[in-house]
C-alpha cells in the first residue's frame, strides 16, 4: 500500500470513496472537508525564523449515523519545527457525540463558549492560527427554561511557544435560566465556573490551581437590549506558591456591559463598557495561551490600511468604551459613526491614561440596485506603540442585474505618524484594490500599494503589488492562487492578532469538500 503509515491519507481516500457507497446504507453519511495551503516566500531570506516554503493542511472527516457523530481531524504543518509543535502532523482531533434531542454528550475534542467569552472560549480562527480546542468530555442539556453546559478536559496551548502539550486540567460549568417573559422582554440569567489545575509534576507537588467564576444577565426588548457580566479569577495566594513563582496578584476582575437601543426605525445605538484588571486567564503551563477571550471593544475593520495598526486586547490592565450609531435617513443610505477608547486602569480619578482611541465614520449609499458607493474616514491613536493614523477610503461596487459578474474597487490613503522618539517619522500609503468577478466561478483581484516615508533610515518609497485568482473548479473544489509582494502587518480577529511577515512570492490554497 502506498504510504501505509499515513492515517491522514487513508482517511482522505476513505472520504473520497465511501460517499458513493454510503448512499446505499440508509441514514449513514460521510462528510469530509480539506484545506491545503502552500506558500513560497522569497522574503524569508531576510528572516531566519521564516522558512521559505510552508505547507499546511487540515482534513476533517465526519461520519454520521442518525444521532451519532464520529469524526477526526488530520493536520499537517511543514516544517513543523518552526512552531515547536510536534503534534502538528497527524490526527490531532477525534471525537464522538450523541444527540439525545434535549441534550448532547461529546467525548474527544470540542469547541465551546460561555456567555460572550469572558471566562471561557475555546475556538478556532484559522486565519490567525488560533486553535485552543479542548480534549475531554462535554455535556450540553436543557430542561424547563434551564440550559446547562459542563466539561472536563485539557485545552490545546496556542501561545508563541506553541507548546501543544495539554498539561492543564480544565473543568467548567455554565448554567442559564430563561425567566418567563416579563411583558415583551426576554430575560436570561446565567453563571459560569471554571477550575484549572496544573497536572504536571510541579502542579501536583504544590497543588497549583486557579478558579474563575462569572455571573451575567441579559434583557432583550423590542426597544433595547442590555447585557452585563461580572467575572472574577481567584489565583492561589499561598505563601509557598508565591515563594516558588514570585509575587503575583491573586485576584483578577472583569466587567462588561453592552446596551443597544432602537428608539426609531431609522436610528439605532450600541454602547459597550469594559474594565479588565489582571483578567488574562491563561494556561498555567503556557502563559501565552488564553482560556478566556473577553470582548475587546474596538471596531473590527475590513479595510486593509485601517486594520493594519490594530489595538491588541490587554486584559490585565484595560478599561474603556465603544459607542456606535447606525442611521438610515432614507432607503439605500446608511450612516455609521463609531467611537472607541481604551485606557489603562488608574485609581486616580483625575488621571486618564488613554492607550488607544478610534473614530470611524462611514456613509454607504445605494445609487440604484446595481451601484453602491461608500466613503469612510478613520482616525486611530495608539499611545502604547506611538502611532497615529488618518485613513480615508472610497469603496465602489457594481453588480449588474441578473448577471454573474461584478466589479468592486477600493482606494485607501493613510497618513501614519510615528511619534515615538527616535523613530519619529511620517509615512504615507496609497492602496488600491480592483476585484473583478468574471462569473460565479472566477474572481480576479489586484491590490497595489505605494508607500513613502520621510525617515532616512528606511527606503524612501516602496511598492507592493499582489494578484489573486479565485477559481471554483466545480461545486466541491475551489482554488486560490496569489502572487506578488505585500507589506508585513497584523491579521486580527476579535482583538487577537498574529503578525504576518513581509511576503513576496506565491501562495496556493485549495479547499475541497467530499
Amino acid at each position, binding site marked *: 500500500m*502506498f504510504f501505509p*503509515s*499515513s492515517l*491522514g*491519507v487513508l482517511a*482522505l481516500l476513505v472520504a*473520497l470513496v465511501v*460517499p458513493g457507497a454510503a448512499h446505499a446504507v440508509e*441514514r449513514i453519511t460521510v*462528510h469530509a*472537508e*480539506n484545506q*491545503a495551503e502552500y506558500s513560497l516566500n522569497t522574503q524569508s531570506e531576510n528572516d531566519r525564523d521564516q522558512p521559505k516554503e510552508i*505547507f499546511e*493542511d487540515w*482534513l*476533517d472527516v465526519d461520519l454520521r449515523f442518525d444521532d451519532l457523530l464520529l469524526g477526526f481531524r488530520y493536520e*499537517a504543518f511543514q*516544517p513543523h519545527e518552526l512552531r515547536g509543535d510536534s503534534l502538528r*502532523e497527524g490526527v490531532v482531533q477525534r471525537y464522538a457525540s450523541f444527540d439525545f434531542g434535549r441534550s448532547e454528550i461529546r467525548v474527544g475534542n470540542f*469547541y*465551546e*463558549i460561555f456567555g*460572550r467569552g469572558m471566562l471561557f472560549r475555546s*475556538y*478556532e480562527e484559522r486565519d490567525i492560527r488560533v486553535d485552543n480546542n479542548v480534549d475531554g468530555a462535554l455535556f450540553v442539556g436543557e430542561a424547563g427554561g434551564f440550559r446547562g453546559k459542563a466539561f472536563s478536559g485539557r485545552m490545546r496551548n496556542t501561545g508563541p511557544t506553541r507548546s501543544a502539550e495539554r498539561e492543564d486540567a480544565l473543568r467548567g460549568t455554565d448554567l442559564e435560566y430563561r425567566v418567563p417573559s416579563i411583558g415583551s422582554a*426576554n430575560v436570561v440569567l446565567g453563571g459560569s465556573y471554571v477550575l484549572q489545575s496544573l497536572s504536571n509534576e510541579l502542579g501536583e507537588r504544590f497543588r497549583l490551581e486557579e478558579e474563575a467564576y462569572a455571573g451575567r444577565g*441579559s434583557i*432583550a426588548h423590542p426597544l433595547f*437590549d442590555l*447585557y452585563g457580566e461580572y467575572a472574577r479569577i481567584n489565583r492561589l495566594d499561598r505563601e509557598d506558591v508565591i515563594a516558588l513563582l514570585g509575587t503575583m496578584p491573586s485576584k483578577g476582575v472583569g466587567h462588561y456591559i*453592552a446596551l443597544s437601543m*432602537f428608539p426609531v426605525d431609522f*436610528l*439605532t445605538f*450600541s454602547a*459597550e463598557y469594559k474594565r479588565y484588571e489582571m483578567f488574562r486567564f491563561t494556561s498555567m503551563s503556557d502563559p501565552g495561551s488564553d482560556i478566556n477571550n473577553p*470582548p475587546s*471593544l474596538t471596531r473590527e475593520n*475590513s479595510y486593509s490600511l485601517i486594520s493594519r495598526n490594530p489595538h491588541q486586547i490587554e486584559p490585565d490592565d484595560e478599561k474603556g468604551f465603544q459607542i*456606535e450609531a447606525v442611521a*438610515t435617513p432614507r432607503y439605500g443610505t446608511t450612516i455609521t459613526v463609531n467611537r472607541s477608547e481604551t485606557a489603562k486602569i488608574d485609581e486616580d480619578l483625575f488621571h486618564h491614561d488613554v492607550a488607544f482611541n478610534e473614530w470611524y465614520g462611514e456613509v454607504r449609499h445605494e445609487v440604484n440596485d446595481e451601484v453602491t458607493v461608500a466613503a469612510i474616514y478613520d482616525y486611530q491613536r495608539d499611545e502604547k506603540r506611538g502611532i497615529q493614523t488618518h485613513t480615508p477610503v472610497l469603496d465602489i461596487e457594481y*453588480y449588474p442585474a*441578473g*448577471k*454573474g*459578474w461584478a466589479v*468592486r474597487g477600493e482606494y485607501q490613503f493613510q497618513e501614519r505618524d510615528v511619534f515615538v522618539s527616535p523613530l519619529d517619522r511620517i509615512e504615507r500609503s496609497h492602496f488600491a484594490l480592483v476585484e473583478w*468577478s468574471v462569473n*460565479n466561478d472566477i474572481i480576479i483581484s489586484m491590490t497595489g500599494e505605494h508607500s513613502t516615508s520621510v525617515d532616512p533610515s528606511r527606503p524612501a518609497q516602496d511598492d507592493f503589488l499582489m494578484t489573486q485568482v479565485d477559481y471554483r*473548479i466545480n*461545486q*466541491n*473544489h*475551489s482554488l486560490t492562487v496569489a502572487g506578488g509582494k505585500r507589506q508585513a502587518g497584523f491579521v486580527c*480577529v*476579535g482583538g487577537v492578532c498574529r503578525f504576518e511577515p513581509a511576503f513576496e512570492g506565491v501562495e496556493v490554497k*485549495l479547499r*475541497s*469538500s467530499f
Partner: protein
Amino acid sequence: MHTLKQKLSRPALALLIIAVTAFVPGTAFAQPKVAAEIGRDAPDFTLVNLAGEEVNLYEELESGPVLLDFWALWCKPCLRALPGTNKLYAEFKDRGFTVLTINTDSPRSTAKVKPYVKSKGYDFEVLMDPNRSLQRLYRFSQIPKVYLIDQDRKIAYAQLGYSTELEKRLHGEVAKLMPAAAPESEEAMDADHEEGTN
C-alpha cells in the same frame, strides 16, 4: 538546497497530490453537477435569536422549507446579499417558507448585530452563532453560504458567494420547493371584482 519534496513529509505531499488530482478532468471526481452536500440530511441545531428565544431547525421545518443564510458584519458580499434574502422571505413567507440567517461574528461584534438588522428593517430571523458551531456542523469555511432545506430535512440546494445571477438562481430554487399559491375562493374573487367595479 532542499526541494519542496524533500522538505514535506510523505503524508503531507501525498495529501497535496491527492487533493490536486481530485479535480483533474478524467478523474471520478471531476466536475460534479451538484455540491457534495446536496441530498444529505441537514443536521439539526438550536440557536438563540435576537429576541433571546431559542429556535430549532427541525421545528421550523414543520411549516415548510427553510433557508439558512450565513453572514457576518465584516463580510461585504454577505451584507450585499441580505436585502435579496429579505425580499425572498417577504415573497414566500405566507406559504410556510422560513429564513434563518446565521450571524457568525465573534463576541467582539455581537452587540452591533441587532442595531444593524433593525436599522435595515429586515424581517427575517437572525440567529447568533459567535463560536461558529454551525460552520463546523455543516463543514464549510467560507461565507456567504446558503443552504436550502426541504421539508424532508434534506439539503436541496447550496450556494457559495454572491452575484445578482446567484440571487436569481436561489429564487428559482426556493420557488421550486414552494407549493403553488392557493387559488382564491369564488367569494373572494367576487368581492375583488365588486371592489374593482365600484
